[in-house]
C-alpha cells in the first residue's frame, strides 16, 4: 500500500470523526469547529490526491481549498456568535 | 457504474430535502440536485477518457470531452445565482418555514 494512501485514509477518517461531532454537537460551537475540520480535511485530501495522481495542477486547487477553509472558519464563527461581529 | 451510483445517491438526498417544509432544507436539496445534474452532464461526455483538456500539459488523445465541462461551468454559475437568491427569500421573513399556518 502506498504510504500516501495511508495518509489519505487517516485524513478521511479524521473527517468522519469531525462529521460525527457535527451531528452530535453538543453545542453549536462544537458543530462549527468540527465543520471547520472537515474543510481543513479537504485541503489535505486534495493535496494527497494530487500527490497520488501525480497531478501538479492541484496546487491551484489546494490554494483554493485553503481559502475555502479560511473564509468558512470566519463565517462559522459569525454563525456561532449569532451574527455578532 | 460508480458515477451513476453517486448521481443516484445525490438525487435521492436532494429530492428528500426538496420535499421538506424548511426553506433552507429545500435550498440545500437544490444544491445537491445541482451537483447531481452537473455530474450527469460530465457523465454524458463519457467517463472512459479522463484526461484534462489542457493541451499544454496533456495529450489530446486522452482528454475528456470538454463540451460538457463548459456546460457544467455555466450550470454551476446559474445554480449558484439562484441559490443566493433563494437564501435571500429564506431570510426575508421571520422563519424559513414554508408551511402555511392552518
Amino acid at each position, binding site marked *: 500500500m502506498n504510504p500516501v494512501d495511508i495518509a489519505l485514509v487517516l485524513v478521511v477518517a479524521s473527517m468522519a*470523526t469531525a462529521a460525527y461531532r457535527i451531528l452530535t454537537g453538543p453545542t453549536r460551537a462544537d458543530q462549527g469547529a468540527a465543520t471547520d475540520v472537515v474543510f*481543513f480535511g479537504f485541503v489535505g485530501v486534495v493535496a494527497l490526491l494530487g500527490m497520488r495522481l501525480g497531478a501538479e495542477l492541484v496546487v491551484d486547487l489546494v490554494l483554493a481549498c485553503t481559502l475555502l477553509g479560511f473564509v468558512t472558519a470566519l463565517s462559522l464563527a459569525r454563525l456561532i456568535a449569532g451574527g455578532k461581529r | 457504474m460508480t458515477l451513476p451510483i453517486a448521481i443516484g445517491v445525490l438525487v435521492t438526498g436532494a429530492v428528500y430535502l426538496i420535499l421538506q417544509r424548511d426553506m433552507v432544507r429545500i435550498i440545500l436539496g437544490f444544491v445537491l440536485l445541482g451537483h447531481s445534474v452537473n455530474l450527469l452532464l460530465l457523465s454524458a461526455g463519457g467517463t472512459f477518457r479522463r484526461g484534462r483538456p489542457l493541451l499544454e500539459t496533456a495529450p489530446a488523445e486522452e482528454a475528456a470531452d470538454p463540451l460538457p465541462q463548459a456546460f457544467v461551468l455555466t450550470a454551476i454559475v446559474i445554480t449558484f445565482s439562484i441559490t443566493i437568491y433563494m437564501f435571500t427569500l429564506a431570510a426575508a421573513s421571520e422563519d424559513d418555514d414554508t408551511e402555511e399556518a392552518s
Partner: protein
Amino acid sequence: MSTFLEVLGVVCAVAGALVFAVGTFGLLRLRDFYARLHGINMASGLGTALVLFGLLLQFPSWENALKVVLALLVQLATAAVGGNALARAGYLAGSRASPATRHDALGEAAGNGADGPGAT
C-alpha cells in the same frame, strides 16, 4: 535528488496526516469545547502545513513554491485566526468550559465572574 525530495515529501505528508488524525481524535477525547479547539488547531496548523509542504516537495518548481507558500500562509492564518474567532464565538455563545477550568480571567474582567461561560 528528486527521489530524495519525493520520499521526504511523502514522509511529510504522512506525518501531517498523522498529526491531523491525532488532533481530530481530540474531538472525541477532550472534555470541553475549548479543549477540542486546541486539538483542531493542531490538526489545521501543524498537520495541514506538513501535508502542503509534502506536496511542494513532490512537485518542486518556483511557480508551485509560490503557490504553496501562499497556501501555507492562508492555511496558517486560518488555523490561527480561525482558532481565535471560533474560540471567541464559542465564548460569546456561552459554551461551557469543563469544571476542571481553574480560572476565567475573561469573566472577571467583565465583572461577572460567576456567570461567564468559563466559570466553574
